[in-house]
């Protein structure tokens, strides 16, 4: 693209906010009462993880694998891609993430469930925001409740809940499980920013938070555990 520096973020916005929010309204109406079931499944997976219940890994893999694939197909490819051609290229990433979530759950030792630390508490908060606060955001933004974004039905809460649970669990697979959700947050956050929507900051904040918490957990020793001053 020539003279790229002359472009603003909103030059890349292909659709009006009204058209965008109506996608969620149509999705919810077409799938009702599935949004209730996906929210319940998300909360159940979260409880399994929190209580480190037997089968937590399998439950998490099943729920998150299925919702990533479902949202990728039913929302991204079937709806969102009709107004944003870039999304047609992002849909397959949701299928890859679904396979990765399923694979991590099935492979012994890929994920470990430990007692909640500070990073885990932040992850839990993020997951709860995605599951319970996201659906009521329209009320704060002055949009109709019918266009609520629900976990397992719409991409943003699904992705943020995923980042939340990935911050709770441990294991070597995190490095492959986190990139797609983080990239989606940046893509969707910038889209919402171009639409002047305040909730853009939730999307853009999630990767920043993850990066910060990653530094706290895996970063240099002085960040993890400050040496007592003498």
């Amino acid at each position: 693209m020539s003279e790229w520096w002359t472009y603003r973020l909103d030059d890349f916005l292909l659709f009006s906010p009204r058209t965008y929010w109506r996608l969620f309204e149509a999705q919810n109406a077409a799938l009702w009462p599935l949004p209730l079931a996906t929210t319940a499944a998300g909360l159940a997976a979260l409880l399994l993880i929190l209580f480190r219940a037997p089968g937590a890994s399998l439950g998490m893999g099943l729920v998150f694998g299925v919702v990533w694939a479902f949202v990728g197909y039913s929302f991204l490819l079937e709806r969102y891609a009709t107004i944003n051609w870039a999304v047609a290229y992002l849909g397959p990433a949701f299928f890859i993430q679904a396979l990765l979530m399923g694979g991590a759950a099935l492979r012994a030792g890929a994920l470990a469930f430990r007692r909640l630390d500070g990073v885990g508490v932040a992850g839990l908060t993020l997951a709860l925001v995605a599951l319970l606060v996201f659906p009521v955001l329209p009320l704060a933004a002055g949009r109709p409740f019918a266009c609520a974004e629900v976990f397992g039905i719409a991409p943003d809460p699904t992705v943020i809940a995923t980042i939340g649970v990935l911050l709770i669990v441990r294991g070597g697979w995190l490095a492959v499980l986190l990139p797609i959700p983080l990239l989606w947050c940046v893509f969707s956050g910038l889209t919402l920013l171009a639409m002047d929507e305040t909730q853009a900051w939730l999307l853009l904040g999630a990767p920043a938070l993850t990066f910060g918490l990653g530094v706290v957990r895996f970063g240099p020793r002085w960040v993890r555990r400050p040496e007592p001053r003498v």
Partner: protein
Amino acid sequence: MTITRRRLLETAALGAAMPLLPATRLFAQDAPLMRTIPASGEAIPAIGLGTWITFNVGDDRQLQAECTAVMAAFFAAGGRMIDSSPMYGSSQAVVGRGLATLDRRDAVFSAEKVWTTSAANGPAQIVQTRRLWGVDRFDLLQVHNLLGWEAHLDTLQAMKAAGRLRYTGITTSEGRRHDLVETIMRRHPIDFLQLSYNPVDRDAERRLLPLAAERGIAVIINRPFRQGALTRRLAREPLPDWAGAAGATSWAQLILGFILSHPAVTVAIPATTRVDHVRENLAAAGGVLPDRALRERIAAHIGAL
């Protein structure tokens, strides 16, 4: 609706006799302002319809119906040119659906674009675009934002020579790449140039508009309202009482009057989701166009707000 010469003359005479009568009352639902395409001498209504963002509504049936209603009002008021691009998501399909529903494929002046970096993909993209519109051939095909312009212009010129296209063109916006645009205008036989121009974006006045007039290139004006930012900003301000002298009853009409009063401008293509706005836009500059002094007054006034 057919626009006869007599009707145009009557309209013009009426406009001259009663310049202070609101333009909408004189011309709404009547003949819109006409311009001539230099390459052919063909007359064309000076207000067209853009589709960027406004017509990208996907499979949303209600919004599709709203777009069709905008198109119906556009044709009813005498509009003809509709501009779209493969870049505009579902807009092309929405235009095609509207044309089929209204059965107005005969009325439309189809202004489309080719938008791909690949020279080889150009022809296939044009075929796909034509399918979406449901027309046999396009009136105008433009190289969108000069992307891969050399190869695509060859394609378009070959199509025109073979009778599969009526006019060729190039587009740019927001003042980008005017140097290259000027080079192309001087060296290639294009029929149309599309660029941004309005009372606060006047860069085109310096070189490109005079050059277009000199070389007989028709000019389409995009972003007349800065994608709505200008009309939204002005909505908070009172319309000056001298706007009537420019044939305007609203800010949108005052802006369009300014644009159309440049002699090199052929068609302005505001986009809208609203039937009342499309009517208001078509009624713009009905007969009374601002003179040079009034043009400067409009630009100074809007620029200062």
